[in-house]
């Protein structure tokens, strides 16, 4: 199991060394709430990365919009090339929840377009969390919305590691059990092909 390790050509500068040790010490002494007040351009993300490296805890980073979340995800990925940095935002490119407006008597049906790539990244985030400890998930407020029960989720996963051996037919059976469909022509998620 890899430890969190920051890879960067910079070393902490300005107020960063003090901030890193203050925050890490706080975490080690079980402080439940701390605030990092960083002025524009002071390197908040780098500081947080060094704190994560210091305390070695799986971390959830929450951002209030998708653009900022994507920026943070890119930055953390660069800083932690050997750890699991994951991205968890709503998989809808467009989402219109069903709703009813009594005043005008209008019912609007649920409508959405789903982004498969984001869905894949979400699944990767949850499966990383169930498999390893060196995980950072950068998320939008999507992280407070309903997701399956982790215990049930675990049952719906087929774990495969390098050098495992499994027969083709039992692998197919496992996958079909969790609703994979076989299609040898077109590759998509939830489609099984050989």
């Amino acid at each position, binding site marked *: 199991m890899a430890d969190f390790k920051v890879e960067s050509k*910079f070393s902490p500068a*300005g*107020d960063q060394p*003090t*901030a890193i040790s*203050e*925050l890490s010490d*706080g975490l080690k002494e*079980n*402080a*439940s*709430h*701390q*605030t*990092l*007040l*960083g*002025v524009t*351009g*002071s390197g908040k993300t780098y*500081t*947080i990365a060094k*704190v*994560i490296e210091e305390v070695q*805890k*799986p*971390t*959830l*980073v*929450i*951002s*209030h919009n998708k*653009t*900022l979340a994507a920026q943070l995800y890119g930055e953390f990925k660069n800083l932690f090339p050997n750890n699991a940095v994951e991205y*968890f935002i709503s998989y809808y490119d*467009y989402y*219109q929840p*069903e*709703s*009813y*407006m*009594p005043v*005008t008597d*209008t019912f*609007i049906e649920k409508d959405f377009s789903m982004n498969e790539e984001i869905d894949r990244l979400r699944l990767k*985030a*949850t499966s990383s*969390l*169930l498999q390893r400890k060196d995980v950072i998930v950068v998320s939008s*407020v999507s*992280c*407070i*919305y*309903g*997701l*399956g*029960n*982790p215990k*049930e*989720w675990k049952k719906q996963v087929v774990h495969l590691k390098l050098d495992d051996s499994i027969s083709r037919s039992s692998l197919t059976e496992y996958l079909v059990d969790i609703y994979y469909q076989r299609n040898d022509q077109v590759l998509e998620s939830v489609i099984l092909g050989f």
Partner: protein
Amino acid sequence: MIQEIGYCSGIENYSRYFDGRKEGERPFTLIDFFPEDFLTVIDESHVTLPQIQAMYGGDRKRKDNLIDYGFRLPSAYDNRPLKSDEFSTLQNQVIYASATPSHRELELSQGAITELINRPTGLVDPELMIRPSAGQIDDLISEIKIRSSKDERCLVTTLTKKMAEDLSEYLSSVGLRVRYLHSEVKTIERVKILRDLRLGDFDVLVGINLLREGLDLPEVSLVAILDADKEGFLRSKSSLVQTAGRAARHEQGKVILYADKITDSMKYLIDETDRRRKIQMKFNKENNITPKTVKKSVEEIMQSTRVAESYRDSEIEVKRDVATDKFLLEDKKIVVEMIREEMLEAAENLEFEKAAKLRDEMNKLEKEIKL
């Protein structure tokens, strides 16, 4: 349906039965996938925390109508985001990160506040100047002219749309190169305007709320705040600090507040700036640091704004008159993107009727493009 084909549309409303949850019990979320000992970092906590708190209320309001008028069963209430207190209970250890943390974070932290005041670049916070509103426009013009002659840029923020319009018109009539950024300007054009400002196509950007992300412009050496003493959302403590911060990437950065009295928010900004500058200058002196603006080449600026690049030569000011059908194919594609943007924004603001109309319009256009 579930037995036959494995799924059923709309069933997510009744997730409670599938999860085996009791009435009113919270849903499982991503947080449940974390082990017990984990860390949460809330970025831009002064915006993110209120957003987390608002999610449950918005969902509940929408469900009220669906359930009251018989479209859904009452158990649909339990397919929902976490309430604020449920979110708090699920936390183990939290770090709030912000340039302007609100009372809530500071209270929760009980004095455990770590500051990053000294930047690795050594840049100090911009100097503040307070000037009377009488004669402010002439004063502003002469300040802008000084910056323009040195190839530096200015941001001017006003309180109302009317004033922003009048001001940019006037500044332009006296020969200044000025543009006006308002809320109806969509993302693509917004990025283009910001890029043109950075490249020096014009010198002054006038707007109302210039705090939105993407406004970290190292070329900006002056931020002028008109009506700084009109206490309110746009002139609150955190608004003033964030606005003044827009000049913090330039070594000559200055902020002018036009005001006839000093409000509490202004006092806070003045004291805070003073405190920071003292610490920063002392630090630079002790460590022999000379602050330097990060100078970006034209290529680097282009790189950072390439979203706008692909639309650079296209006419963006296309009329939204879909019926006349006079657009070129390329224009239509841009219009679709603009409508999509607007639709997402409407959906985010819970204006579902508006979003649905925009969706229909967008689908119609998309069909036309395919023909």
